[in-house]
């Protein structure tokens, strides 16, 4: 187990663990473990205890996974391929077990809601503002012209310096900066990174547009406050997308340039690590300071609600997967987590997701052939 392995472990596992542990604290206050509740119930002592319990369970699970990972990777020794597989298995195992922990609390919450009957005491409503979309919800997609320009510059630069690129080009790096997979040099294979840059820029641009288009979710108990929070929430993530997207494209250009101007292989490990650390730390800070839908942003004090949000639990399968045939919305806020998800009842939403995932695999595959 060397330094690089530990570094990879730290940058990949720890942020995932921390975020998952604290998700119940980051959601909207009208939701608890995938079950909709009146806002004031969020501070109920029993719910507070459940959040704490969930964080403890997930925390203990994280420590166990790290311990197993360290133990096994010592046994495996220098076999880097096996270490890579181990890492994926560790993350996969953790995600499944933490989902089971979630399900336990989800069930408990559902039972509690059924017995307490909070929702029957107040009328349920849905509210929207007709002027919501006239406001500035995201930063302009024009910002993506900059990474797009970098990508095309990289393409041009690569073509102009084609002769200087070695006959074999690296496709994949191990944890220690050693190349583990090579491709023969050709006009197609040298274009893998630049084409991925264009793809990623378009992907970030798409996500940014999605942030603007996603369903307007206003809390009935406090509409003005929740709209204010929601606008800040969207703008902050939009800024994050623009900044991290541009940084990612810059990093790709750096890697591409090392084909023409060789650098210390250690730098090829360190730069991506610094980049991922920056990106994850940024996301965590944003998630904790903003909360889902902007729920953690302090604004003017809210009043105690006479009405509550409509109970749409029936459309949230297992509290996390939205399936509503009557809702034309494609994208909406996640229920248990920070960010957005799709309406699984809409084939178009599935198609978009599939196209994104498939092209991420197809582009390098076809260009490397």
């Amino acid at each position: 187990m060397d330094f690089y392995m530990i570094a990879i472990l730290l940058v990949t596992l720890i942020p995932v663990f921390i975020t998952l542990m604290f998700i119940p604290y980051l959601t909207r206050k009208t939701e608890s473990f995938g079950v909709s509740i009146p806002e004031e119930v969020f501070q109920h002592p029993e719910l507070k205890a459940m959040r704490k319990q969930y964080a403890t369970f997930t925390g203990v699970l994280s420590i166990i996974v790290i311990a197993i990972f360290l133990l096994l990777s010592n046994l495996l020794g220098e076999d880097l391929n096996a270490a890579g597989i181990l890492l994926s298995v560790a993350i996969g195992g953790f995600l499944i077990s933490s989902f089971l922990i979630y399900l336990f609390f989800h069930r408990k919450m559902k039972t509690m809601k059924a017995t307490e009957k909070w929702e029957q005491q107040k009328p349920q409503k849905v509210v929207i503002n007709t002027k919501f979309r006239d406001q500035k919800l995201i930063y302009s997609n024009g910002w993506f012209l900059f990474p797009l320009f970098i990508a095309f510059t990289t393409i041009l630069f690569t073509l102009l310096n084609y002769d200087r690129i070695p006959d074999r080009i690296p496709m994949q790096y191990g944890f220690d900066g050693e190349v583990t997979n090579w491709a023969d040099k050709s006009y197609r294979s040298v274009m893998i990174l630049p084409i991925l840059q264009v793809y990623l820029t378009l992907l970030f641009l798409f996500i940014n547009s999605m942030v603007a288009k996603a369903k307007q979710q206003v809390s009935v108990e406090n509409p003005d406050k929740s709209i204010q929070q929601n606008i800040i929430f969207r703008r902050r993530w939009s800024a994050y997308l623009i900044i991290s997207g541009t940084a990612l494209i810059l990093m790709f250009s750096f890697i591409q340039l090392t084909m023409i101007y060789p650098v210390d292989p250690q730098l090829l490990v360190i730069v991506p690590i610094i980049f991922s650390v920056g990106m994850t730390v940024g996301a965590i800070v944003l998630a904790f300071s903003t909360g889902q839908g902007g729920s953690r942003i302090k604004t003017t004090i809210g009043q105690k609600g006479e009405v509550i949000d409509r109970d749409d639990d029936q459309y949230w399968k297992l509290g996390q997967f939205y399936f509503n045939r009557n809702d034309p919305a494609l994208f909406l806020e996640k229920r248990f987590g920070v960010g957005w998800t799709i309406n699984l009842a809409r084939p178009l939403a599935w198609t978009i997701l599939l196209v994104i995932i498939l092209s991420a695999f197809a582009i390098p595959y076809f260009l490397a052939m």
Partner: protein
Amino acid sequence: MFIHLDLQSNEAIYTQLKNQVIAGIAKKELQPGDGLPSVRSLAADLGINLHTVNKAYQQLKQEGFIQIHRQKGVVINPEGIPEADETYKRTLEQTLHPIIAESVCRKINEDEFLAICSSLFLEFEKTKGEK
């Protein structure tokens, strides 16, 4: 303007939607020429069927409250809402008739009934004065 819907109510959703837009115009929260969300966008935000929103919009259009343009989208009638004509007055009478009949049965006298009407009118007058 905020649109509130009660999805458990007996009143049809398209009626609620239509009534709220009309109330918004009466309270001057919606001015002539102001935009409204497109059918798709409003339905997605409210999480209701496209046809429901479409039905409300079509009725509002027929009654002269809104205009639906291919390019400009949905706007509050820029020429103002058409003033009451004989046909409207007849419809108004027909609508009020059963309501007054019920009030009579329930021993609400004319003064009481008119007092309720005045207070409702006041609701719209007030907002007019503020803006």
